[in-house]
């Protein structure tokens, strides 16, 4: 059975400082299937990041549900969601690296609790670093890296476990043209028949450089619509 990720009538409410509730997402419906690359565009504050976090299982919707292969993962308890999240690789808008760690140590973080052998773990980490062209930075502390390099480390960390679902939030935001082209090309290359890829970006280079996008969603005022 091929993987599918479905948003069914999802809304998310947030309580404001004055006690009132504000809808971040309203009645979102979306279906993503294995082998697809989905692009979510929209202005800053439109709700792109929130939607990605819902897909990644970092948040629970206030209304509606998210299913994976028909299973309501958004309703699962913490223990099951923790384990399900291992199928997801996520690139945050901010790199969220551990400052005390080296690049290599940051990249292997998702693999540590999975019981991977040390040899396999090292191989996966070096593969991820090579893919992003940052092997030479492996032993450096992440604080010494530029914003673009930190973003690549964050991407390497997301792909190291070869996830079935790869979610990226503005992964080219801090990249120059050359770096953006490399990342977009890589994302297009990572599309496999059994994977789902979701990228939120308002960077026009995504449509300029690659053949990543199979589905394009636009989000505005918390409402999602599919463009093609």
């Amino acid at each position, binding site marked *: 059975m091929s993987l599918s990720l479905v948003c069914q009538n999802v809304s998310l409410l947030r309580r404001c400082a004055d006690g009132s509730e504000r809808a971040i997402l309203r009645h979102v419906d979306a279906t993503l299937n294995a082998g697809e690359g989905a692009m979510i565009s929209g202005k800053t504050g439109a709700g792109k990041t929130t939607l990605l976090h819902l897909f990644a299982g970092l948040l629970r919707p206030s209304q509606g549900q998210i299913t994976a292969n028909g299973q309501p993962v958004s309703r699962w308890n913490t*223990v099951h969601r923790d384990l399900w*999240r291992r199928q997801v690789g996520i690139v945050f808008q901010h790199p969220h690296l551990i400052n005390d760690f080296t690049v290599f140590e940051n990249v292997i973080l998702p693999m540590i609790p999975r019981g991977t052998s040390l040899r396999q773990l090292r191989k996966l980490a070096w593969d991820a670093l090579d893919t992003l062209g940052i092997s030479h930075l492996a032993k450096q502390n992440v604080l010494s890296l530029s914003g673009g390099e930190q973003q690549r480390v964050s991407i390497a960390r997301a792909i190291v476990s070869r996830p079935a679902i790869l979610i990226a939030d503005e992964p080219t935001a801090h990249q120059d043209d050359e770096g953006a082209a490399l990342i977009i090309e890589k994302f297009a290359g990572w599309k496999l028949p059994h994977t789902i890829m979701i990228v939120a970006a308002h960077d026009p280079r995504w449509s300029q450089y690659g053949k990543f996008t199979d589905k394009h969603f636009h989000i505005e005022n918390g409402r999602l619509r599919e463009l093609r």
Partner: protein
Amino acid sequence: MSQALSTTAGHLLKDSPSVVVRRVSPLGWSALPAEESIRLAKSVPGVLHAGIRIWGTANSPGGPVTVFGIDGSHRFSGLTKSVPLPKRGEAVLGAGIATGEDPDFLKLTGHNALIFRIIDTLKAKTSMVAHDMVLVHPDDARQLLGIAEGYASDLIVEVFHETEAEAILPDLSRAFPWPVRMTTRNEAAGIYTSASARRSGIVYITIIPGILALALIVVGVVKGQMVQSCNVGLFKALGWTTTNIFQMQLLKALVIGMPAVTAGMVVSYGLVFRSGSSWPGYLFFGWNDNPPPLFLNASGAFLVLIEVAVLVFLPYLAAALWPALQAAVSDPQDFLES
């Protein structure tokens, strides 16, 4: 340390007589007639055995000492079983007796002055009750202390069961035609215990800064962990389960906490139970020389371990594990936003 003191006192006093009877006089105490006292004591129902002791204080080159006259009939097995009984002119010394210039002889001055050849020293573990004790032949003790033949310093009484000691005190008191003062074994042990408790109270005052320091450490750990709670959210987002995070935090806490607790325990043990550590005795109890070695009681030590765990280790662990406990009930997003 206070626990070790009372354990040691109890251990040493278990060989002491059930009741000690002293004849009191307006000047303090006076010798009692040996044969008559024994006969009168044995006339009291419940008394199994009665005997006399000859002891008192004398001056040595290092200061006042307690002189005890012993022979085969005396029951100080706990003290004397490892040393030979002194003959006339011989002495066995407690661990704290300074001999003066000649280490083989000791001059004692009381009612008379006598010089003794030192034949042995009492075991260090008896120091708590025999630190300043000199064991001599009973005849030498009489001569030194000025106690006439047929008289004794006090009377010791044994009863069948310890609880009977308190019960026979009124009868025992009435049996003697002179005023007496009686001390039971429990009272003797209580003197040590209450003294130890008083000292413990003083020691706790010194512990208060330590408790405050601990509280600051715990607050510091909690604040540090709150700063790192963002990392907890990140770990969960990267596929770590609450159990994984809990194990990691526990390991981190133990890596720091266990060596600290172990080192503290070893140092405490060394200071209390190993000889040569004179400063705690000087600091807390005013002792001027090395404190006597103390007995380690397994159950008492276990209680101390539990106290340390409750007061120090558990708060530290709880503080260190707080983010993991929070993670168990929260979404990763909550941490990433914190």
